[in-house]
């Protein structure tokens, strides 16, 4: 399959089941909601070392938030329920509770309830106040700037992590420009996040390493500087490869995000140095969700 001069490999991205949740952070203005959201989703690129994968889903207008203030919705994904709950709670405690004027609300109705502010309330040292409003439980925690308002729980649902595609380009600037264009479009799709910095990964990994202590190492088959030294997957004209990783609430959400992302890359086309789209898979060993690139783009 070739789109605008870009070859779409007959391969698939391999993804795995995760647990996912969403929270809504509001503040006096969008600036401070975003600051809190960025802090909460920081250092959360990969479950390999961060404990979770998190990202900003989108900015919410005041009429979309529970308290009528500007907000940001964030999503967090982890391999297990316990890990997700722990990450959510510690991040909420350190990054939202502490952030001026912030409030924190559930972003998923239904699913399994996991603590959002349920335990953060103890920061109130007995002065915290519970309020049940419209069937939902909230906590008002006295803090130095006034009150931190938080919903007690949010919903945890089954999710999918690790959807991805690789952009193979003739130069590093061209690879990055294509990925930026893809991310711009993918951000418009609900229920997904691209957890890596700016949504783009330059250090795709393979499973295993020559060093026994490491579970993952550089994906040498896609490293352009190793073309002559390893069993490469790159043709001579490829000088840079970048990856976009997607976590989403369902396979369909990731399908959609991949489609608009790959399309944005292909719109730049061969004329802008984009040669191929490929994907990371591990022979079907890693996860049950397979995203076949050519099927997605058909």
């Amino acid at each position, binding site marked *: 399959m070739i789109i605008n001069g870009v070859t779409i490999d007959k391969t698939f991205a391999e993804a795995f089941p995760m647990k996912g949740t969403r929270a809504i952070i509001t503040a006096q203005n969008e600036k401070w909601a975003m600051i809190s959201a960025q802090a909460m989703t920081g250092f959360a690129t990969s479950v390999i070392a961060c404990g979770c994968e998190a990202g900003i889903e989108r900015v919410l207008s005041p009429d979309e938030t529970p308290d009528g203030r500007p907000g940001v919705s964030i999503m967090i994904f982890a391999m297990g329920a316990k890990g997700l709950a722990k990450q959510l709670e510690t991040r909420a405690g350190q990054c939202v509770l502490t952030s001026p004027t912030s409030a924190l609300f559930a972003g998923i109705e239904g699913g399994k309830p996991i603590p959002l502010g349920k335990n953060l309330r103890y920061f109130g040292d007995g002065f915290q106040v519970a309020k*049940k409003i419209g069937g939902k439980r909230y906590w008002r925690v006295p803090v130095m700037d006034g009150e931190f308002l938080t919903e007690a729980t949010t919903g945890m649902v089954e999710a999918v992590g690790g959807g991805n595609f690789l952009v193979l380009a003739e130069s590093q600037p061209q690879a990055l420009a294509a990925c930026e264009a893809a991310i711009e479009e993918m951000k418009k799709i609900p229920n997904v996040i691209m957890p890596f910095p700016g949504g783009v990964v330059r250090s795709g990994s393979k499973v295993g390493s020559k060093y026994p202590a490491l579970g993952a190492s550089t994906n040498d088959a896609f490293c352009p500087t190793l073309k002559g030294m390893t069993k490469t997957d790159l043709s001579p004209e490829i000088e840079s490869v970048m990856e976009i990783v997607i976590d989403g609430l369902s396979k369909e959400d990731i399908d959609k995000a991949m489609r608009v992302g790959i399309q944005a890359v292909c719109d730049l086309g061969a004329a802008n140095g984009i040669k191929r789209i490929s994907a990371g898979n591990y022979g079907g060993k890693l996860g049950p969700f397979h995203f076949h690139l050519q099927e997605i783009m058909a």
Partner: protein
Amino acid sequence: MSALTFTLKQPTAQRVDMSPLVCQKLQGLDVDAIAAIQLQNGKSRPRVDELFYITGKNTQEIIIAGSTNKLDFIGKELDGGSISVQGNAGAYLGMQMKSGTINVSADAGLYAACEMKNGLIQIDGNAGDFLGGALPGNKQGMKGGTVLVKGNVGQRAGDHMRRGQILIEGNAGDYCGSRMVAGTIAVMGNTGRYLGYAMRRGTLLLWNQPQLSATFNDCGSHTLAFLPMLFASFRSLNSRFADSSAAFNRVRRYGGDMAETGRGEVLVRI
């Protein structure tokens, strides 16, 4: 199917225990079976059809027409469905109600919504003492749900209240929120003496400055984020509380009752 309607034939001299006539107890019964239910009326036990004309069939929608303040325990332990009282209701309206709705077109007597667990009670007139309170000797009053009173309420509204909300468009008598454990009482009118007497936690939300006991301490003026959400949750009510112009988020906060654990609050609109 039309609402099951009990129309009082004539005012009773003695009080009537209406607790058998709730939706879940009448479900599946035909009119003859309902008519044969015996109600306690003073010392006697007349059949329902001796006291009421019965029309309609829908047991999940009950109307009590021509009601007087002698009809006690209307909607006791109601668990789903609706009861509409045309006229006054006696004591213990909606006592220990679990879910559903009760509407009273005029006044309700003592202990309305006492120990209520969930659901909605709307009283278009006034309510008596101990609205949403605990029965004598019990430690917990209302535990959930919403009570809306369009008129005034008597003394000790929300006594021992544990959770839920009492919304009063008119005035509240003395000891409003006494011994309150938690929950919210909102009063648009005036409040009497000894507001929040011995309250432990909970919120008294007031439109007018009350006369506060010495055991309530001024915590200053604040903009509270939960208030707009609370007011937004009232929007579905047929009430002045649903009016967006009634909403505010700027309040004077008083903490108390310091003679108790002192974690309660009186919030007064500023």
